[in-house]
Each structure stands twice: as C-alpha cells, then as structure tokens.
C-alpha cells in the first residue's frame, strides 16, 4: 500500500518542549523551596560529619552555654550541643516526614483509587475516611501515638493514619475525573481487565494532584512530629528530634531562648521550603497554568 504522504520531505525533528524538570526549576517558588528544603535536608543527611559534638553526650561543665565560638548555637541543660542535636533531629524529622508522605501515598492512594473506580466500594471506604477526618488530625495522631507507645515507627504509623483521609480524597477526586475520559473506554474496548484499566490507564493520569498533596503532607508531618515530640509522645528521649529540643528548652525560654529557637527556625524553614515546592509542583503539573509560568 502506498503511504499517502511519502513524498513530503520529513520535517526536522522538532525541538523538544521543555520537560517537567526544567519547567520546575524555572518556577521561582519551586526554586526557592528546593533551595531551603535542600539546604536543611543536606545538613540533616550529613549530620554525622557536620555535627561538631556527640548529640547525646552530657557534659555538666558546659550547661546552658549561650552561643559562642565553640557551641555555635549554645547548649542545653545537660550541656549537649544544640547544633549537633538539631542536625541529628533534622534527620529524624525528615525520616518521619518522608515515611508519612510515602505511606499515606501508598495507602491513601490505594483507598482513593479503589473508591473512585468501583462505585460499590466508594460509599463504605469514604465513610470510614470521613469518620477519621472527624477528628482533628493532630489530636488523632497524639491519641494513636500514645496508644502505640513511643517509637519512631509508631509516630510514622500514627501520623499516616491521621493523614490518610486527605490523600484518599485527593486520589479519589482525580480518579473520578479520569475514569470518564474516552481513552478509558478505549482501554476497555481493547480487552483490558478492570484492574489493568485502573493501574495503567487511570492512575498515571490521576497522579499529579497526589504528588502535590504529598509535599504538603510531608510538611504537615514534620510539623506534627514536632508537636508529638513536644508533648512527649514522639520518639523517646534521648533521640534528638526537632520538637523534642523545643520541648527541652520550654522551661528555660526566658534564660536560654537559644535552645528552642534553633530547632524552631529549622522547622519553619523545612515547612516553608516544602510548601513552596508544593506550589511549584502544582503549577508545573497543572496544564491550565502551564502557559502562565513562562
């Protein structure tokens, strides 16, 4: 069979449209967010090398030292270096934040996808989510963490349960939209099974809002972990956590404000950075806003 347009010379390969990554980098708020978050995260990751002192070692001769050239951010009531503790605390907080973001994405994503795709599952699943949503997330996490006992893993589990309903809702909304697209009917028409239609055709097209949502969940989890640690139901002492260090300084806020100040500023930077990144991601992944970015 003759190819109709064979005689037409082939156009030169078109310049590739800017990919998602370069579009993200070009986005100012994503760039600033990445800078802030990246800075804090790298410090946390390199805590073992960067920390000048052992974060756990008590030294009663150096109690309540204000910031000086040896202890850049001062020491606490046991003479532990705040900088070293904060650096290690970042590690714990980010591990918990990432764990919660991934776990809620997995569980909430699955629940939301199933609820959105199979109408029969929708009612029961989402009523359970609504019931969870009825409690303030932090309150629920405190109760769960207290019930499960203090450990890093339990904090991740407790926070994940508390934040799963948000993720599930976002995922369900995305699936509800995408499953009506004609290409989903097209996938059925070539004999794809329902599970395959959902996993291969619906989910990849419904992921974008979830990705954005999970950056906010990450930030919320970092904040919530600080709250739990502050209240004493976070990872058990002497594990340095950002919330734990703030709690340590609470009784001495007048005399030694540097104890609470340093981890407090770090939490603010992490959360700000993550939120800015989330905004950037949202703009980059939303095709309706795409032209507005340039």
């Amino acid at each position: 069979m003759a190819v109709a347009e064979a005689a037409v010379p082939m156009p030169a390969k078109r310049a590739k449209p800017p990919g998602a990554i370069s579009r993200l980098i070009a986005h100012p708020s994503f760039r600033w967010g990445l800078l802030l978050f990246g800075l804090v995260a790298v410090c946390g990751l390199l805590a073992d090398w960067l920390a000048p002192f052992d974060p756990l070692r008590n030294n009663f001769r150096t109690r309540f030292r204000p910031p000086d050239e040896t202890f850049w951010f001062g020491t606490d009531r046991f003479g532990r270096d705040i900088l070293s503790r904060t650096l290690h605390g970042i590690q714990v907080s980010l591990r918990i934040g990432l764990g919660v973001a991934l776990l809620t994405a997995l569980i909430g994503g699955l629940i939301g996808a199933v609820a959105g795709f199979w109408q029969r599952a929708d009612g029961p699943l989402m009523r359970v989510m609504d019931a969870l949503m009825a409690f303030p997330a932090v309150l629920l996490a405190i109760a769960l963490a207290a019930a499960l006992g203090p450990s890093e893993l339990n904090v991740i589990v407790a926070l994940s349960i508390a934040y799963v309903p948000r993720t599930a809702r976002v995922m369900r909304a995305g699936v509800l939209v995408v499953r009506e697209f004609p290409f989903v009917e097209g996938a059925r028409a070539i004999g794809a099974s329902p599970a395959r239609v959902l996993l291969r055709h619906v989910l990849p097209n419904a992921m974008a809002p979830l990705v954005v949502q999970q950056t906010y969940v990450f930030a919320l989890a970092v904040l919530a972990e600080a709250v739990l640690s502050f209240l004493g139901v976070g990872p058990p002492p002497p594990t340095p956590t950002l919330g734990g260090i703030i709690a340590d300084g609470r009784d001495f806020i007048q005399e030694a404000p540097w104890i609470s100040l340093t981890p407090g500023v770090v939490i603010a930077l992490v959360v700000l950075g993550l939120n800015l990144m989330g905004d950037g991601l949202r703009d980059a992944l939303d095709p309706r806003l795409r032209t507005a970015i340039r």
Partner: protein
Amino acid sequence: MSLLSVRDLAVSFGGTRVLEDMSFDIAEGEVLGVVGESGSGKSMTALAIMGLLPMGGSAAGRIRFEDRDLLALPEREMQRLRGERLAMIFQEPMASLNPVFTVGEQIAEVLRRHRGMDRRSAHREAISLLKLVEIAAAERRVDEYPHQLSGGMRQRAMIAIALACRPKLLIADEPTTALDATVQAGILDLLRGLRRELGMAVLLITHDLGVVSDICERVVVMYAGRVAETGAADAIFARPSHPYTQALLAAIPRLDGPIGALPAIGGVVPAPADFPQGCRFAPRCPHALPACEVGPPALRTTVSGTDAACIRVQEVA
C-alpha cells in the same frame, strides 16, 4: 451465516428503555450503517455489543457473534474477545488515546494482551500497523505521544489499535464526526480500503447520510430507540419508504436544489421517558392517523425491498 446477529435487543437504564426491538445482521466483510439522530440509540447498540454499557445500563435480547451469545458471555470471556475479534473506534480521537503513553506503547498493549508478543516484536508490529493506516514516517511517529499528532493522525492511530489483532468486526462509532471534511474523506477511504484488504465487517454508526451512501452496503435507520427502516443502502437512498427516512433524506441540502430555507422535520425527538405508546414518529409525521398511536408498528416489506416500521407504508412510499 451472518457474523453478527442481533435479535430483539433492548437496553434500559433503571426503568427507562432507551432502545428496543433492535434486530439486524452483519455478514462477514459487510459494511452496515446505523443512522439516526442523537439519542436514537445508535451508540447504545454499539456499546451493548461490546458489553461496555455505562453504569446502570442493562441489555436484553440476543447478540450472537460467531456462535457465541455475547449477552450471556462471562466478563472474562468478553475481555478476551474485545480488541481481538471485536474492535471499536470512538468518536473523539482527541481524547481516545492515553496522553501518558506513546502511540506505539498503546498499539503494543493490544498485541501483548491478545497475542502474547514480547516488547520488541510488538513495537515492530506497531510500526507496520501505523504504515497500514498510512501514517507517514511511522518509525518516528511510533515513539511520539498523542499530543504530538494531528486529529486525523490520532484517529488513524486509533484504527491501528483497533486493527492490531485483525478483528472480524469493527464497530466505528461516528469515527469522522470530530474531524474536518478533507480528513474525514481520508479516514473513510482508509476504512474502505482496510475492510477490503482485511476482509472484516464494519458496523458504522453515524448521523451523516453522506458517509452512509459513501461506504455502506446496508443501512439501519433508527428513530427514538427503534428501527424505522432497514435495507440495502441503494434502495433506501433511491426510494425511502418510511416517512422518517423520507424526511431525513429531504433535509439534506443539495447544491443543485432551490435556494431558500432548508427543509426540516417539525418538532424534536422525544426523551426516552416520554416515548409515545404507538409509532414513535407519529407526533411528527405528516401522514399520521389515529391508528398509528395504538401500538408500535411492525416492520413490513416495502415495494423497494426495504423493511419499514410504518402501517401506511404502502400508501406513503
């Protein structure tokens, strides 16, 4: 023996029947056109055959395809049939391809599903399928994403997906509606050529009578969920018997016709919930009698050899 035989097909949603008494046959390699206005039940017929009725819809009657009753077939069996023996292309080529996969991946999906091909040979076959549907530079297009293709090319790619396993029956639901006129002609030429080349039957759903006269051998004219008239395309176009078919043909604007207002059929198609008891066209029919409102008219053979659902067909034709 016919490839597909539909008998007394009825589709209802809740208590509302949107389609009833639908019967027709398609022989191997035949092109059957189903025409009607929006809401006449054309698409529901197609979806019922594919077993893809929307949520809440149920089909009754018999749909026999190659010795199998599709309505009685378990869903798993239907999944094996779809895309393999029975393929469908849709109205909206712009949205009928998955935006996150390349054209080649989507063609390969059918081949891997039904033919068990490995990734590499499926990719090769995808290229030759794109050549079959006359897409230039198929080797390059195969790795492009749907948004990089024009509307006409996307519909060609859809056809390539549908034809991947050489189905016996292709259902084309308004395949050219969303395309502009020259692209439309190209797609119809392609369908005509492929059908001859591959020997497949085509069920072409359209509201465009021009398309029907172009490539269909037989026609089913539908009105408000029932068959109005059915028969050979030549006979229906030369001498329509049912008042609705007559009115429909009279409403086609002609280049050599008189200049003035276009002829139209008065009134609108009733909604499925308000379908009249008797002949559904009676309220809009210039020839209607009180007897028309008693019950749905049966199909009767007309002088031109078609079958029309009209009690006055002898006088009207």
